[in-house]
């Protein structure tokens, strides 16, 4: 019995270690490369642990490049597109789950379908659309476009969260003379707040990480976001890997932190749902 148990754990830990190496190695290498001096970096046969470390890439990043501008642009775009999307989605999802009117099912289906609509089809006309609105090469165009990616996702999630809140809670409030709108703010929102926080976190990450629209809709460095800015660190064809890796490290920090925070809630949510069933 104990040999069987030993074999079982041996198997689990072997799988874990292989999976961890495959998963984490690119992170490790990004981090190490960002601290490797150029003379070692551009040498054939790199070693797993470089012999020298330097902060030079980070210093260059903030003194010689427009990285700070890119970073602030990303913060601006991600924060506001998340805010806009979350507000629209809360109102919409409440309407779709709690109020009864014609066309409700049709709207729900359209939202889910638009969640699956490929960006590859939309990016050219979206570029034309933004230019017509006078938003060509303007980071504010992203505030218009990112909600098209984020709102369907948020509604999709929020609809299922709102559905899980028992209607009886609201009925009591409605009998007491609350209007539906008041019950949204006084009953639903406080209960759903943790889930809304998780959805908002993922919405922020989506906007922070987006690439294609940002590439097409912004062209000058003053308007570009981190994802586009970083990929421009090159001399003609040659990438400047030190800058690329150090900026990648910094650009990944916000989404990784938010993600780790939200992920704890998510695992909790899922297993709680499991117990109920």
């Amino acid at each position, binding site marked *: 019995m104990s040999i069987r148990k030993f074999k079982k754990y041996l198997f689990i830990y072997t799988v874990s270690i292989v999976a961890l190496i495959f998963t984490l190695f690119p992170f490790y*290498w990004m981090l190490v490369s960002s601290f490797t001096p150029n003379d070692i970096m551009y040498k054939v046969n790199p070693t797993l642990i470089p012999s020298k470390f330097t902060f030079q890439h980070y210093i260059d990043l903030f003194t010689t490049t427009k990285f700070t501008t890119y970073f602030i642009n990303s913060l601006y775009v991600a924060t506001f597109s998340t805010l806009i999307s979350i507000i629209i989605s809360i109102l919409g999802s409440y309407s779709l789950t709690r109020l009864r009117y014609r066309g409700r099912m049709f709207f729900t289906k359209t939202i889910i379908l638009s969640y699956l*609509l490929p960006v590859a089809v939309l990016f050219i006309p979206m570029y034309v659309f933004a230019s017509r609105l006078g938003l060509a090469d303007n980071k504010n165009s992203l505030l218009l476009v990112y909600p098209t990616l984020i709102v369907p996702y948020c509604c999709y999630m929020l609809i299922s969260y709102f559905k899980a809140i028992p209607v009886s809670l609201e009925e009591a409030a409605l009998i007491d003379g609350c*209007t539906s709108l008041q019950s949204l703010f006084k009953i639903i929102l406080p209960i759903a707040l943790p889930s809304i926080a998780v959805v908002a976190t993922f919405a922020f990450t989506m906007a922070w990480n987006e690439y294609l629209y940002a590439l097409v809709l912004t062209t000058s460095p003053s308007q570009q976001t981190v994802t586009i800015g970083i990929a421009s660190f090159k001399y003609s064809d040659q990438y400047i890997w030190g800058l690329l890796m150090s900026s990648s490290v910094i650009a990944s920090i916000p989404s990784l932190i938010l993600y780790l925070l939200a992920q704890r809630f998510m695992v909790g949510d899922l297993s709680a749902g499991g117990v109920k069933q």
Partner: protein
Amino acid sequence: MKGLGRKYDVLLGYLLITPVVILIFIVIGVPFVNAIYLSFTDKVAGSVPKFIGFKNYINLFSDPDYIIVLKNTFVYTFTSIGFKLMIGIFLAVVLNQKFFGRSIIRTLLLLPWALSGMVAAMSWKWMYNDTYGIINALLMKAHIVHVPVLWLSDARLALISCIIVNVWRGVPFFFFSVLGGLQTIDSQMYEAADIDGAGVIKKFFCITLPSLKSVIMITTVLSTIWTFNDFENVFLITGGGPLHASSIISTYTYEMAFLQNEMGKAMSVAASVIPIILMMILIPLRKLNKEEK
């Protein structure tokens, strides 16, 4: 009083859904209709589009590049999905056991999901580098290869290199979804199977897999669509090269539109796969609906 409240609710319902409806029907709808229209024109950047019927579409099928790109897109999508699905399910089932360090390992395995596609692509591109890349250095040190592998410039390898990165980024989504699905399986089913003397493999195929059917289906549909439309991964790693060897529909559309300025043609490339995408959404969902009924 009751009648008034009812009317109020209907009005409020429409009012609250209006922003979402505007977003979907105008901000997505107008460009979408425009996209379809452009695909029937000879629009070149800066010119007034002229309607030319199905000419763009007919030309596509005699364009050898388009055929290669279409084939690459399918290879890219289905190979990636196959590996993500297998690795994701395998990891979820193994790491669903109770053992020391489980939650930290699970969290770490989910990290690639949070990374932007751009950072993932650039990190891997650096690791794939012919001369300074760590992958070649390790392979040579272990005497697995003796000359550097040209991960990104060898036409036979370029697409595979992109697939590996896509799998690396995509496994966490499957892992996480399946892990969630596993929590809903009644443990009594396993206890009953234990009493009947069923082995690990048998339990997996007779209990675990059937119970996960709908989770796996939804996850696969979502991921298939995302993979099919993936852009930055291929665009940044190989740029579709060498000579379209790793080019897929999304990167080919971009190349047509912004490097060759052929907007009309580019739109026909993008629109030509809409029926395929619709089929990938509707067929599995219909099947799922039927089974639930």
